[in-house]
Structures are given as C-alpha cells and as structure tokens.
C-alpha cells in the first residue's frame, strides 16, 4: 500500500483531511465526505487502495454492518484490518476506510446491495459474503429479484470465493454463478419474499423429510424445476455452529438474537477463508457488544433504554425476537431519504406480537404507525417526541425500536452512542 502512485497518495491524504474536518465540525463520521474528495481527485483510487490486500466484501439487506464488524474483529487476530465501521457502504465510504488504514494487509468492507457488482469489479475482492435479500425501501432500492440477477452476472467468470447463506433461496440463486461457494445454513426468519423459485417462478416447497431433523425446517426446493437448497458446509444449529469438519462451536455471543447468531456463523465461515480457525476467531466475536449504537443501552432519568435498529419488515421481525416481551416499548418511525419516503412497508410488519405490552409511538411518521397499530388492534400512546415518550414511561428497562434516521436522531441525543 506504500506503493500508491503519487496522485493516489495525495487524493487519499486530502480525503482524510476532509474527513477530519467533518468530524471536528460535528457534521458526521466523515467517512463519506473524505472518500468523495479522494475519488474526485483520483477516480481510480478505490482500485488502487484495494490492490495487494486480502479483501472481503459483505452484502445483504440486513445485518451488513454487524457482520462486517464481527469479521473485522476476528481478523484482527491476524493483523491490521481496514473496515468501514460506520456503515458508509458505497464507494466513497470504501475509499475512506481503505485510505484510513493504508498498511492494513486485510480489509473487510460492507457494501450496499446495489453497489456490489461495481465494487467487486473495481476491487477484485477475493472473498464475497452474502447473507439475505428481502424487501427494503422500495422507493429507492432496486427490486430484489433484479438485484440477485445483477449479483449473478457480477460473480460469473470471477475468481472470488463466495460465502453465502443457502437458507435464503434468492441469495443462493444470486451466488450460484460464482466459481467457488461455501454454503452456510444461517437460517431464514423472513420468508415473505421467497415463496417462488428465483430460477423458474414455480412454487418453492419448504421443509424436508423427518430424517433431516432440524435441517428440515430450513430446507427448500422448487416444485417445478431442479433448483434446490445446496448442502451447507457450515450449519448454525441453535446456539452452536458446526464447521465443515463436524466440530461443534458454542457461540456465546454478547450480541442478542438468532439473527446475530446467523451473522456470527457467516462471519466464522468468512474468516475461515482467510485461514483463521474458529478457535481463534470466536473469542474475538464474543467481545462485540454493540455495533454503531445497535443493541446498546443508554440511561436517562432512571430509565435504561436498549436501542434496536429495524429498517424494513425483516429487520422488525428480528428486533421483535430480541426484544424482551415483559418490557414497555418505544417505536419510532421516520420517512426521510435514507429510510425510504414510502411507509407502505409498515403494513408488512406483524405488530400483533406487541399485544399486552405498553407501546409508545413517536417519530416523524408516527401517524402512519398509529393507524397501522390501530388496525392491528394494538393499544398505544402517541408521543410528539422521543423525550415525551421517555418521560411518559415508568422507571426501569425499556426497549426502543427505530428505523434508520429515527435511530440516528435518538443516538445523537446520547452523544452518538456506540
């Protein structure tokens, strides 16, 4: 990396200065502006910065930031790791991450689903990790069938080693043109976007034979063509991960929930491709307690608020699984650009699971959520602000679920809690 041409070195240095200024003036993490400045001066900067590193790209609808963090934490066992820890997951963010750790021999980059083909072309990454695809912010994101098709085209004919969740049919289809795939059975919690075969459109049959045991519940196969779930090399089995040698590893993560156990299984398979054994990787995965404010607990006026991020129906399903059913809950929804300006997706979330809990509704689009809960028959209290919701709650533990900008607003109130 010290071999960067002069122009790239300059572009990289000026980008870092812009990032520092952005942080110093309190405008943000600086990851995006720094990368933009760098790319303006040297359009080929990302390719140059990626050269000579062992690089993994991580993409999915949900869990990108967390899985990227888990992989990066484990890889530190091997040496310095460059990573876009703040979730700036487009090329400017990648430039920023790589130029911030110029001598790191390893890199792991979270990549927006749409940008994966472009970033793979540019960086020639050796490893690509793919977890799940589901409906997400349809007013600005690509349609997911189309997205999987683009992944197929991008991976075909490249040497990249893909680590993919074979329990998600669309991800399996998107990954299956790759030269080499390690399949991970990471489970699939949200299934509403995969009732039809991505190959032929026929119905997918779920569930396998009795002999398959627990693996039967995640099995799928097309009723009309030959497309079916590949045999996994790695298996998430409850609290354990079984590796390709049949060794069983108890995860014991600090991060809560099945979605994070799935993220950890994928992370273990990914770092294995870097030559790092689970025995060395796991202790490092267990040190991760929160990721950019997600799962963190903050205190205010005698209340302990645990912050959960949920950006789309699949994310809400995961957040509900983590949330403690005995606790009151604050829900906050916005519809700014990064959230998607369309709130239709609220109708894909099954809120009936909240029945019996005290529910407080806030955020810029609280009326959309209020009507949604009213139709679901869930009593709630409408609050004009997050502070008003907190003040209305009894002392003690409280769960908070918010979508993207609503989450960032809350996090900012607590000094950008990490």
């Amino acid at each position, binding site marked *: 990396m010290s071999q960067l041409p002069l122009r790239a070195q300059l572009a990289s240095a000026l980008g870092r200065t812009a990032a520092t200024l952005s942080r110093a003036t309190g405008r943000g993490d600086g990851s995006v502006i720094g990368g933009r400045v760098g790319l303006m001066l040297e359009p080929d900067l990302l390719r140059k910065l990626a050269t000579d590193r062992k690089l993994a790209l991580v993409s999915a609808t949900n869990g990108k930031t967390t899985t990227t963090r888990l992989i990066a934490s484990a890889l530190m066992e091997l040496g310095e790791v460059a990573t876009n820890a703040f979730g700036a997951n487009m090329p400017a963010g990648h430039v920023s991450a790589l130029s911030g750790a110029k001598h790191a021999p390893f890199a792991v980059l979270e990549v927006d689903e749409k940008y994966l083909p472009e970033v793979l072309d540019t960086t020639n990454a050796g490893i690509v990790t793919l977890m799940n695809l589901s409906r997400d912010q349809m007013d600005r994101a690509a349609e997911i069938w189309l997205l999987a098709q683009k992944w197929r085209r991008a991976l075909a004919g490249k040497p990249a080693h893909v680590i993919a969740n074979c329990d998600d049919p669309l991800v399996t289809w998107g990954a299956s043109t790759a030269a080499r795939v390690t399949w991970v059975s990471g489970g699939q919690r949200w299934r509403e976007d995969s009732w039809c075969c991505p190959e032929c459109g026929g*119905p997918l049959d779920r569930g396998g034979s009795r002999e398959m045991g627990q693996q039967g519940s995640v099995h799928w196969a097309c009723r009309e063509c030959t497309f079916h779930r590949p045999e996994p090399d790695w298996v998430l089995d409850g609290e354990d991960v079984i590796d390709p040698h049949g060794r069983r590893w108890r995860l014991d993560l600090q991060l809560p929930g099945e979605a994070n156990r799935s993220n950890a299984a994928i992370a273990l398979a990914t770092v294995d491709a870097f030559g790092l054994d689970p025995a060395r990787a796991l202790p490092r995965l267990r040190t991760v307690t929160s990721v950019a404010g997600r799962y963190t607990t903050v205190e205010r006026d005698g209340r302990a608020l645990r912050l959960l991020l949920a950006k789309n129906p699949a994310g809400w399903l995961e957040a509900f699984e983590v949330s403690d059913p005995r606790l009151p809950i604050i829900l906050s929804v916005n519809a700014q650009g990064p959230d998607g300006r369309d709130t239709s997706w609220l109708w894909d979330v099954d809120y009936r699971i909240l029945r019996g809990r005290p529910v407080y509704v806030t955020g810029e689009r609280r009326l959309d959520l209020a009507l949604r809960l009213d139709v679901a028959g869930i009593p709630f209290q409408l609050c004009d602000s997050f502070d008003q919701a907190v003040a209305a709650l009894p002392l003690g533990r409280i769960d908070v679920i918010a979508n993207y900008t609503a989450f960032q607003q809350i996090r900012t109130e607590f000094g950008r809690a990490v």
Partner: protein
Amino acid sequence: MQSELSIVWIYPDLLSTYGDQGNALVLEQRARARGVPTRIHHVRSSDPVPQQGDIYLIGGGEDRPQILGAERLRKDGGLQSAIARGAAMLAVCAGYQIMGSVFGGEEGQPVPGLELLDISSSRGERRAVGELAAEVDPALRLPTLTGFENHMGVTRLGPGVRPLSRTIVGTGNGDGTEGCVAGKIIGTYLHGPALARNPALADLLLSWAIGPLPPVNDEWYQRLRDERLSAVLGDQA
C-alpha cells in the same frame, strides 16, 4: 355475501411487494367495525382462485412476478368467473395493469392481460415515485385521493372505463388521470395500503359487497389523511 364477508387476496407470494396486505386488513377492520364477520383468504399462485369471494384484492410486484401472475390468472380463470358473477375488486399497480388488455414486460415487450378492464399499459420513460393526490370523479362522492406511487407504467383508458380521479400531484396513468373504475372494479397506481389512506374508498368497496354502511370511528385514518394531504398539497389542502 353469504354468512361472512369473503376477502380474497390474490397471489401474496408474487404480488405483495409494497405492504399490499394493508388493503385486506383495512377492509377487514372496517367490516368488523360494522358487525360483519369477515375472512381474508390468501390465495398463493400455485392454488386455484376461489370464485365465491365478495371482494378481490391484487397488489404490486416486480416485472417477473407480474408476468407470472398474469399467466397463472389467465390459465386459472377463477377471477374472471368471480368478476362475471359481480364480485368487487381493487387492483393495485402491477395488479391494475394485469387487468387490462396488455402491459409492458421487463424489456418493454407487450404481455397480454386479463381484459377485465378496458385499459392498456406500457412502460414509460421514467419511474414515477412519490406522493400522489387526486380529485375523485364527483359521481363517486369521495374525498381527495391520497397515496404513494412507484411505477414505470403508462396506462391508456378505453371507452369501457372512467378515470377514478384527476391528479393534483403525481403521475398516475400518465395523462393527468389516476386509476380507473368500471362496474365494481377499481384500478389504481396508489400502491401498498391505498385503503389505509383512503378509508372512503374502502367503504365504497364494502358497500358494493354488503350494501349501505353506518359510519365508524375514523380518528386515526383522518389524522393520517390530514397530515399527508397538508404535507403534499400545503395550502391547497
């Protein structure tokens, strides 16, 4: 209507990309609020469409699922029989286009529809994404239509249908009108839970199926409508 109101949601496995379930839930809530027992039937694309439903719903989806959905409905014939029998239908976005004679496929190729509405659709130049507001045909006596559209379709209305509304903000059919109505069928580009933003439209469908309806408490519907209409229309609202 027999002993209970039967709402048939067509192909949630193919055509429910945008919270389309909301329309079924809103109809169910508003029917039950009037003491009408209601059942929602989820009909997957591998299953036959029942012919005895009261209200049929079909939603939005991506290009490939839209083509698959149209093919399967054409072969199945259940929906066509139900409509011939006089059932009501709300067809949204991709589902709206399917009800016409033809619509544009993933490469813009013409794909035959069900011909239940006298409309034909094709792919437009640019994607229409955003809030929409429109004045409804005065004959229907409904308040301003509000919702969100996200589509590339351009739809031409034939003499067999009337425009549902005239757009104030948004693209709709592409010629200053939005959606259409013919008999007991309503088509619209307002995707997802259009009925959540337009409870009067939900009641129109219900009244077609079960007759005149007493009023219900609309507080949360009205507050959302007022907030959205003033955000989109400003002083015009």
